């Protein structure tokens, strides 16, 4: 038994340094960029559109804020009614996103792992909230949840009210953001090689442990991403919520509605202040999603 030292025990030394690899890669890509035509035209079109549709309009938002001044900004952004609006938006979006994380995992699991009649239809229906106009969803959910509705009517004798309460807002947001969690988790489960589960089972783990220790870590980044997307969308959602919320100040008035009503009073300055706070929050959420994704990809790289 002479040859017990593994053959590439010292392989670290043989590999080229990361720095070297990176330079090679960028050099190759740069060379490529000169070969393929259309750089100037496509960059020109892209920049023109981005400027006209996004950058110039968004810059007017900044302009308006600067004319508002710090004190004006703070008094508008931190007005008690506005703070209550943030709270309603925040809590309801959070609840809806959490509900969708749970059902997102279950639905994605069922759709990828089980075969049953109607599976394809169910799969196709998941995107309904993307396709159905939010106003239509809003009035339909209100009709279902109101005291005379199919579900609201059934719950009324138990003294449970859905429509015109925060529960109603959560229901609307759950509907709207469901596809975000399902559709981020589902492809990960589809791609996840069954061999990881088999490896766990071969080592004697129970199915429950295999899910907890092996599958769950694999889908956690997708769950977090789906959660972030659903939460961000929920914060900004307006159409489906206004009908079911009842819009009572301090109770069921969401932040986007506050912007809307300030605009209706032509109070552009205060509307801008509230909008900026919301933009800040959604930027933080987006940043969080990016961090999750880049961390996850460092594990999956082969």
């Amino acid at each position, binding site marked *: 038994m002479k040859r017990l030292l593994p053959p590439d025990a010292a392989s670290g030394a043989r590999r080229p340094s990361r720095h070297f690899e990176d330079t090679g890669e960028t050099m190759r890509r740069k060379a490529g960029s000169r070969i393929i035509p259309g*750089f100037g035209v496509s960059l020109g079109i892209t920049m023109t559109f981005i400027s006209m*549709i996004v950058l110039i309009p968004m810059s007017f*938002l900044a302009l308006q804020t600067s004319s508002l001044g710090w004190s004006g900004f703070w008094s508008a952004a931190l007005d008690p009614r506005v703070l209550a609006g943030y709270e309603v938006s925040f809590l309801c979006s959070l609840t809806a996103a959490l509900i969708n994380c749970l059902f997102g995992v279950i639905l994605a699991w069922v759709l990828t792992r089980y075969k049953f009649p*109607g599976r394809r239809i169910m799969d196709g229906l998941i995107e309904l909230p*993307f396709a159905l*106009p939010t*106003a*239509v969803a809003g009035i339909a959910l209100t009709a279902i949840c109101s005291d005379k509705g199919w579900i609201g009517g059934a719950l009324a004798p138990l003294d449970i009210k859905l429509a015109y309460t925060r529960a109603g807002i959560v229901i609307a947001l759950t509907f709207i953001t469901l596809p975000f969690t399902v559709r981020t988790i589902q492809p990960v489960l589809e791609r996840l090689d069954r061999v990881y589960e088999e490896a766990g089972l071969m080592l004697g783990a129970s199915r429950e442990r295999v899910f907890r220790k092996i599958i769950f870590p694999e889908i956690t980044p997708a769950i977090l991403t789906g959660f972030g997307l659903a939460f961000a969308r929920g914060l900004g959602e307006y159409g489906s919520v206004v009908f079911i919320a009842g819009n009572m100040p301090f109770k069921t008035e969401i932040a986007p509605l506050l912007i809307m009503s300030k605009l209706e009073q032509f109070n552009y300055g205060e509307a801008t202040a509230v909008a900026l706070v919301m933009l800040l929050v959604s930027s933080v*959420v987006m940043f969080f999603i990016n961090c999750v994704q880049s961390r996850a990809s460092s594990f999956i790289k082969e």
Partner: protein
Amino acid sequence: MSLKGNIWIPRLLTGTSVIFVLLTLVLPLAVVMAEALGSGLDLYMRAVTDTYTAKALHLTLAATAAAVVLNTFFGLAAAWVVTRFSFRGKGVLSTVVDVPFAVSPVIAGLVFILTFGRLSPLHPFLEACGIKIVFAWPGIILATVFVTFPFVARELIPVLEARGTDEEQAAALMGAGFFTIFRRVTFPHIRWALLYSVILCAARAMGEFGAVSVVSGHLRGKTNTLPLHVEILYNEYRFADAFAVASILAVAAIVILAARNVVEYAAHKEEETNVR
């Protein structure tokens, strides 16, 4: 399956899923149809063929068409430049493309009011030229384009990125020009993704509510889209009419969903045959 587990867990999970989907997705659709037809077919037909409904439908279609055409054009250019070249500021560019996704529709509307409205520095100029954007149809179209802006680009970028640039480089080395490369080499790979993203873009454009609501000014017959018309009817307690108009949108949504699934199925099939 080979690895047998507890047979009750699949049944429980499938049952839960089916009930959840029925309650959250199917029930609202059913309610729209039931409420729309609940007051009789005559009333339904009258609401659907009303002149205001027709005008709202007209504007909705115009805004949807504008959003699809402009965003497809932009999306192709952006996906090409981001995935085919490396240049300074590329990361910033692809982040900016996504901005409309992160912005609440209401804020999107607000942004256009600030840009073209009474308070804007551009306002005197626009007034002098007699151009009305806010509280008029151009504003509706702009707001719709804004909220659906990233759809095509977002869908195409990962597809092109995954494919790499080898084929385009090979074609370019053989002397092919931009349009030849795009048409013969790139387009066949992205056509399903493109179609798919156009469908999504159309769905979102058709149903946009928040942004459009802000810039519309609610002028019936002039700046109303179908979703706004639904809101007006609903707030006037004309529920049957509201649901009747809503049913048009619901049917459109179902058609779009079906189209989406057909496209996905076709793309999947093609991918399978290509692999072999």
